[in-house]
């Protein structure tokens, strides 16, 4: 598993997001999107290509299909023992069906993600109900994920994958969205996720103080608990500004049985110009505390039952600034197209680790273990996509 194994796991959960936001009055318009994305940061370059299409079969029944390819190359901070570059490809397919009956929308979807050393399958269902004069929408969802985790003991160009474990994940979600005034809509979401099985990233190692080693430390295997339960609550509000613009505020609180507590704050501003342009700016700040069994440097081998040095479990914060521009090249449609748009979205994220140190050897004098500089890096994320509605 490359360190974007976590990408695969996250992507499958993120695929649920494709299922999330239907309001139960009419099914959304038919639409097709072609999508390109580029992430570069922390030594990694990831290019993504995707195509999505949705269509109503009848007024009450719609289907959607999505295909996504991620290509990764690079060597990230945590590839310690292997100096070789990572090169891998992940393919994800998903299919969704939606059924609308009166004020209820039922959705079911299936997503499958495959890469050389990681396979993930998710099935999910959700129900969305409009009530109280269509001012309130209640959504409930459930998803079930099965992951098969492997480890590539060969190289990028000559792989040798050993399958080492399985992980199961179940997510339970509920959300309420409420129209408060003609200008203001608010919502709250709750999601509880439980995982069991092999939950660690096999490519990451811990380190512990070892005077017998010239570096001053030795590497060891991570040992993770075989269960994990997390709870996240998000509150959000969107307000229409009188000159035709929208401002969104989002706050999410996250806590889990591994001791990680995360707070996310986001503010978005959307500004359209007539029927042609939509400009959007966003700012996001995220801060988390480390997992209870995480340490950058353990005092000796086998010092605890559970040990981790995965940077995702470190104490960290990150700040994102992003901008998005949508241009309608077919604002009023043409023949059977109702509308056509092209969108550019760019974000810059600064990651700061508060207890994860940069121990990659750049040929500088050795630091005493535990005094290496704390790791931080910038990432650029770029997306461009063309959407047609019909």
């Amino acid at each position: 598993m490359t360190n974007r194994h976590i990408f695969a796991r996250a992507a499958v959960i993120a695929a649920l997001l494709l299922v999330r936001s239907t309001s139960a009055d009419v099914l959304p318009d038919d639409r097709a999107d072609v999508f390109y994305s580029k992430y570069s940061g922390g030594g990694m370059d990831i290019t993504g290509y995707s195509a999505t299409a949705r269509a109503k079969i009848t007024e009450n029944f719609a289907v959607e299909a999505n295909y996504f390819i991620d290509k990764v190359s690079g060597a990230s901070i945590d590839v310690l023992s292997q100096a070789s570059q990572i090169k891998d490809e992940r393919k994800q397919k998903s299919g969704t069906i939606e059924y609308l009956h009166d004020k209820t929308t039922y959705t079911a979807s299936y997503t499958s993600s495959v890469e050389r050393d990681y396979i993930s399958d998710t099935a999910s269902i959700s129900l969305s109900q409009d009530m109280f004069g269509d001012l309130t929408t209640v959504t409930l969802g459930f998803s079930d994920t099965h992951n098969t985790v492997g480890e590539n003991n060969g190289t990028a160009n000559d792989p040798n994958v050993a399958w080492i474990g399985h992980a199961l994940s179940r997510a339970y979600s509920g959300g309420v969205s409420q129209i408060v005034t003609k200008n203001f809509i608010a919502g709250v979401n709750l999601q509880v996720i439980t995982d069991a099985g092999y939950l660690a990233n096999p490519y990451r190692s811990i380190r512990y103080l070892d005077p017998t080693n010239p570096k001053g430390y030795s590497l060891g295997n991570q040992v993770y608990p075989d269960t994990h339960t997390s709870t996240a609550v998000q509150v959000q509000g969107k307000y229409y500004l009188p000159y035709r613009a929208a401002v969104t505020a989002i706050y999410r609180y996250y806590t889990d049985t591994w001791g990680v507590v995360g707070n996310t704050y986001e503010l978005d501003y959307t500004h359209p110009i007539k029927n042609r342009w939509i400009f959007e700016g966003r700012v996001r700040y995220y801060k988390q505390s480390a997992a209870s069994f995480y340490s950058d440097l353990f005092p000796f081998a086998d010092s605890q039952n559970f040990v981790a040095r995965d940077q995702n479990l470190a104490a960290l914060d990150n700040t994102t600034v992003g901008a998005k521009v949508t241009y309608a090249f077919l604002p009023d449609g043409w023949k059977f197209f109702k509308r056509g748009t092209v969108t550019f979205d760019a974000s810059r994220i600064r990651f700061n680790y508060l207890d994860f140190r940069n121990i990659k050897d750049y040929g500088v004098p050795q630091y005493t273990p535990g005094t290496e500089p704390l790791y931080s890096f910038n990432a650029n994320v770029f997306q461009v996509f063309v959407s047609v509605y019909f």
Partner: protein
Amino acid sequence: MLSTRVLLKRCAMAAIVVASTAFAAGGDASGPAPSFTLTTLAGQPSGLSAYKGQVVMVNFWATWCGPCQQEMPLLDQMYKKYKPAGFTLIGVNVDKEAPPVKQLLERKPVSFPVLLDPANQVSKAYHVDEMPSSVIIDRKGQIRYIHRGYKPGDENDYQDRIRQLIRE
């Protein structure tokens, strides 16, 4: 603490109850149709009283309402078909501003009269609780039928009601 399985079962049952709460698309209604005077796009005053003695369908619509746009061409066809028999369709538009309405009707014109209700007074008087809504009024000025929402195929329902009232 109840077992998860019991809770899940109860949750599913409750969800089914909630989901099956039917919401009738249309229903018979009664009472005199409130009279009103609004302006056309051209600025001319017009109202229900202009169509006394005819079967009238008052259709409440907006430029931002998808199903409203869907049914407009069908309403237009229906209007042309039954007009000779003493039927009129009035499109009451509820947009807050006139320019988008003008733009839409320039691109997709209709032949039935369109009146503007930006202050939503007529919508309130007719207790509009769904978009779109169509209120069918008989020759005597009594409300006979209210149809809420629009799904393809509803135009058959409209036509049945209109034919029935024309024959009275």
